[in-house]
């Protein structure tokens, strides 16, 4: 247990990245545009490129590039619907991020159990 995530890092290095997921989820969410895209997609069933692009000060090509990176990380799925491509969020890879957050929470939970024991011993003394 290390509160700096060191163990987690080692886990990530030793754990094989799944075959379908070609890009590290942490890289995928490192960019504010991509985080905003995730947020937009989290609020909708699925969205076409032009609706997503309307939220950014960049062309559709730029947004499309970011969607491609999210797709490589397994965070976004796309499907053809008539003439347009619609994008939807697959949040499952974000579990890895959640696991990292859980490190601190586990660290303090373990500490607090010891604190509880210490207080009980104080009571008996």
């Amino acid at each position, binding site marked *: 247990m290390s509160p700096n995530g060191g163990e987690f890092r080692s886990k990530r290095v030793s754990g094989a990245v799944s075959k379908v997921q070609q890009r590290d989820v942490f890289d995928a969410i*490192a960019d504010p545009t991509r985080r905003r895209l995730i*947020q937009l997609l989290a609020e909708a069933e699925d969205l076409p490129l032009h609706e997503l692009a309307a939220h950014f000060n960049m062309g559709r090509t730029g947004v499309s590039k970011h969607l491609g990176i999210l797709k490589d990380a397994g965070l976004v799925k796309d499907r053809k619907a008539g003439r347009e491509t619609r994008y939807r969020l697959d*949040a499952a890879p974000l579990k890895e991020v959640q696991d990292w957050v859980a490190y601190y929470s586990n660290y303090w939970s373990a500490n*607090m159990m010891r604190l509880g024991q210490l*207080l009980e011993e104080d009571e008996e003394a």
Partner: protein
Amino acid sequence: MSFSLNMDFQFETTVEKLWSALTDSGKLARWIADNDFKPVVGHRFQFHHQPNEYWDGIVNSEVLAVEEPHRLSFSWVVGEERHTVTLILDDLGNGKVHLRLEQTGLSNKAALSGARYGWEAWVGKLEQVLAEQDAAK
């Protein structure tokens, strides 16, 4: 922007005893790690955890606030991670004390695998998104 960890605990004790466990160096050593803590604002100290292959075990800290017996705050620096830990005590009566732990500033610029990853408030929505996703399956 960064995100925060908030945790709530309840202990069967008095607020004075809990405060002592949070501010006495010897007691802190028993539930966090060896340290040279003093309940003095501006005091710089370290927690020495068991080192491992990836971490020397040292947390560099500075006391930021001491409001006996209700609030204690100190910085928490490990590598590039600069956090603030705040402990808030609330006497519930009937021999029960509530303890809130807040750790702020997490992973704004975390160094993971040598890269810098930004984290924003939406991470807080993560559990919700994951829960909704699970519910949809």
